[in-house]
């Protein structure tokens, strides 16, 4: 990867204020700023701008507290106490207190389609809350969860009591001004931002000391430009200051323009190919392993990402505790062929359902199909639109794709995927499932970090040896901006683009 360019080049003197106009891709008509319904890239980073969390993963995927002063559990991990920082103001002037946190939980559970509910469903008991004082909340969980604090760190945006999504109010650095799905949204500077002097994410061009409290910008205008070419055109012609979801092939264009800069970062986000372990031929572990051995990860990385990413070994969450960096899968066509033959599935034909879940989803499948052919497996790639992909068959495709952002913790991820009855794509069963469950329960019940790491690693190993996931690589995120803006974070491991949405540290230099 070529990183974020050579040295810092800024266009002029840093200044406060001004409007930042960006163009974003990946938007949908169904986008909403309701922080419980975040279902696309743009809204996920926009939520960071408007709202805030109790705890958070930094752009480097390091866990830290955010609006919480402390999050502590009892020894068994089934009772957690959250203490809030004082004097945090909502955009409407209200001070953040324990009621707001409670309300946020209640809303999460009652709002149809809330995406954050999956992480909490198994643990949170809405009747188990006790408000100790204005800033302190105690939660009795249904069962132990040693990783509950990390669940709070993945997008769980605190909203005030009586929150109305049509007029979103949060504690983030910018206030909501207007929002039209699939067109544009506008936010303006929130003068009373609680974390105005807090630490910033590492940047090649950090704001000079004299720039005052964050956020530096007066206004943030996000235009939806879903077409990749139109987006870069807008940047090149100076209609916008920054764009996200740059295509790898467009990087040379950015490099050719002196006034443009590339913002590239590794991520932990991945697009996976999922084998349904309850349906033939993938009910046979040998077939699964054969495919995993057949795929040429380097070639996939080159073909799909032009090399802009890192090879993965079918295991997600590379930044999580317990991630087994030593498990590396080398391509081995002979073994793959042998396994396939052993399974009696030589020449088997399967249909791989793919769709535009990410830019690389389709090409990844093409590469896989290409590689599979070499071991005598015929993979027919069927491309469908998202409506069909996520249609009623979504959880029952024999062979399909989906994209995930990193959760920061493997246990959380497993709860949302393989261990969930309703939302799994791989459908592990029998002994595997039981074993995974057992390990998961044990891990959640152990407050000892080291032991948890060992248990997690065991789960990782099961995945590695018997799982239904094919994860060839982690893709980089590519953004670009012009030199009239600076302060952009260097890293964006969560892969939410625009430096994980940390616009509060961006400033203009014109």
């Amino acid at each position, binding site marked *: 990867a070529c990183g974020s360019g050579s040295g810092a080049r800024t266009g002029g003197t840093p200044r406060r204020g001004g409007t930042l106009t960006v163009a974003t891709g990946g938007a949908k008509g169904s986008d909403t700023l309701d922080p419980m319904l975040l279902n696309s890239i743009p809204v996920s980073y926009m939520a960071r701008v408007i709202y805030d969390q109790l705890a958070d993963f930094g752009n480097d995927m390091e866990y830290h507290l955010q609006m919480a002063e402390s999050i502590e559990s009892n020894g068994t991990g089934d009772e957690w106490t959250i203490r809030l920082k004082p004097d945090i103001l909502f955009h409407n002037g209200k001070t953040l207190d324990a009621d707001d946190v409670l309300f946020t939980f209640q809303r999460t559970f009652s709002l149809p389609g809330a995406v954050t509910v999956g992480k909490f469903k198994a643990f949170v008991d809405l009747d188990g809350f006790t408000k100790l004082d204005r800033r302190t909340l105690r939660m009795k969980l249904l069962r132990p969860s040693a990783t509950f604090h990390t669940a709070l760190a993945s997008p769980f945006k605190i909203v005030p009591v009586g929150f109305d999504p049509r007029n979103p109010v949060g504690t983030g650095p910018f206030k909501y001004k207007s929002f039209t799905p699939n067109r544009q949204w506008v936010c303006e500077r929130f003068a009373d931002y609680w974390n105005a002097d807090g630490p910033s994410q590492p940047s090649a061009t950090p704001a000079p000391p004299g720039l005052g409290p964050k956020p530096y910008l007066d206004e943030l205008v996000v235009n939806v430009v879903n077409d*990749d*070419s139109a987006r*870069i055109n807008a940047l090149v012609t100076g209609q916008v200051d920054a764009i996200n979801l740059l*295509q*790898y*092939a*467009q990087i*040379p*264009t950015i490099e*050719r323009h002196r006034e443009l800069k590339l913002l590239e970062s590794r991520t932990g986000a991945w697009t996976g190919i999922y084998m349904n372990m309850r349906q033939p031929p993938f009910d046979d572990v040998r077939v699964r392993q054969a495919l995993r051995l057949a795929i040429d990860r380097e*070639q996939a990385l*080159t*073909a*799909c990402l*032009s*090399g802009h990413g890192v090879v993965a070994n079918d295991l997600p969450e590379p930044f999580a505790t317990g991630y087994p960096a030593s498990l590396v899968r080398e391509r081995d066509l002979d073994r793959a062929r042998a396994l396939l033959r052993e399974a009696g599935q030589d020449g088997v034909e399967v249909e791989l359902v793919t769709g535009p879940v990410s830019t690389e989803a*389709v*090409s990844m499948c*093409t*590469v896989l*199909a*290409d590689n599979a052919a070499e071991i005598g497996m015929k993979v027919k*790639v*069927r*491309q*469908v*639109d998202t409506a*069909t992909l996520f249609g009623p068959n979504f959880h029952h495709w024999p062979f399909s794709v989906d994209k995930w952002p990193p959760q920061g913790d493997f246990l959380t991820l497993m709860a949302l995927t393989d261990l969930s009855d309703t939302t799994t794509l791989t459908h592990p069963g029998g002994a595997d499932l039981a074993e995974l469950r057992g390990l998961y329960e044990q891990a959640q019940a152990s407050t000892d970090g080291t032991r948890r790491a060992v248990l997690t690693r065991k789960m990782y190993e099961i995945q590695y040896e018997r799982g239904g996931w094919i994860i060839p690589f982690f893709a980089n995120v590519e953004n670009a901006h012009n030199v009239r803006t600076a302060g952009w974070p260097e890293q964006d491991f969560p892969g939410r683009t625009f430096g994980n949405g940390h616009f509060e540290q961006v400033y203009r230099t014109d």
Partner: protein
Amino acid sequence: MRVGLVLTGLVLLVVVIGPFLAPHAHSDIIGAPFSPPSATALLGTDYLGEDVLSRVLAGGRSIVWISFVGTLVGVAVGAAIGMTAAYSGGVVDELLMRTMDVLRAFPPLVLILLLVSVARAESALMPLIVAIAWVPQVARVAYGAAKEVVGREFVESAEALGTPRMRIVRREILPNVMTPLMVDFGLRLTWSIGIVSAMSFLGVGLQPPAADWGLMIKENYQGLALQPWGVVVPVLCVAVFTFGTNLMTEGFARTVARVSPLEVTT
């Protein structure tokens, strides 16, 4: 007209024998994406690292096939409807042509989008979708041409003989609307090519990894700065083909039909 024939013939040649000449399979990844022309990939590679030349050679089939069959079916069905309506007159005429009017109220591409939203564009269905989009338009043209003929005395003369209706449509009317229909066919073929490639461009047409000129333009457009051939060559192919069919139609219209193609269609 001769130039048109040569151009169209050239494209058809590429389409027919191209796949056999292709140095690679059209969906084989042979190098890094958007690599410039080299000995292995004479026109460089595309967004996935597939060989542009092989894809160009393979990618004409779908577009030519879909637009040709689609147009042919559309023109045939539309002509049948238009002639039947014109000759039958009365209730049949009203019923058929008003239905066509309703369909015609949707611009072809909008009608296609509507159909595509119903039935995904499987490559086998695409000609049908293209055909349906043309039927009402062609019916209108055929109706106009046939209406001019049905009042003529030679049709009456056949009626006075008691010639069966179908025979009158086939023997007396069809030969007379044939010329405008041929011109119309040529024009619509040109438009079909545009529409089929536009469908690919809008993402509602053929889907990767199929090789298709329209799709190639869409896929490789972002790499234009790196590797222009992935876009330029398919654009040229589409342009040469439409230009060729257009010239042919124009020539045909001038020499045989002695009309401007537009007169037939408007």
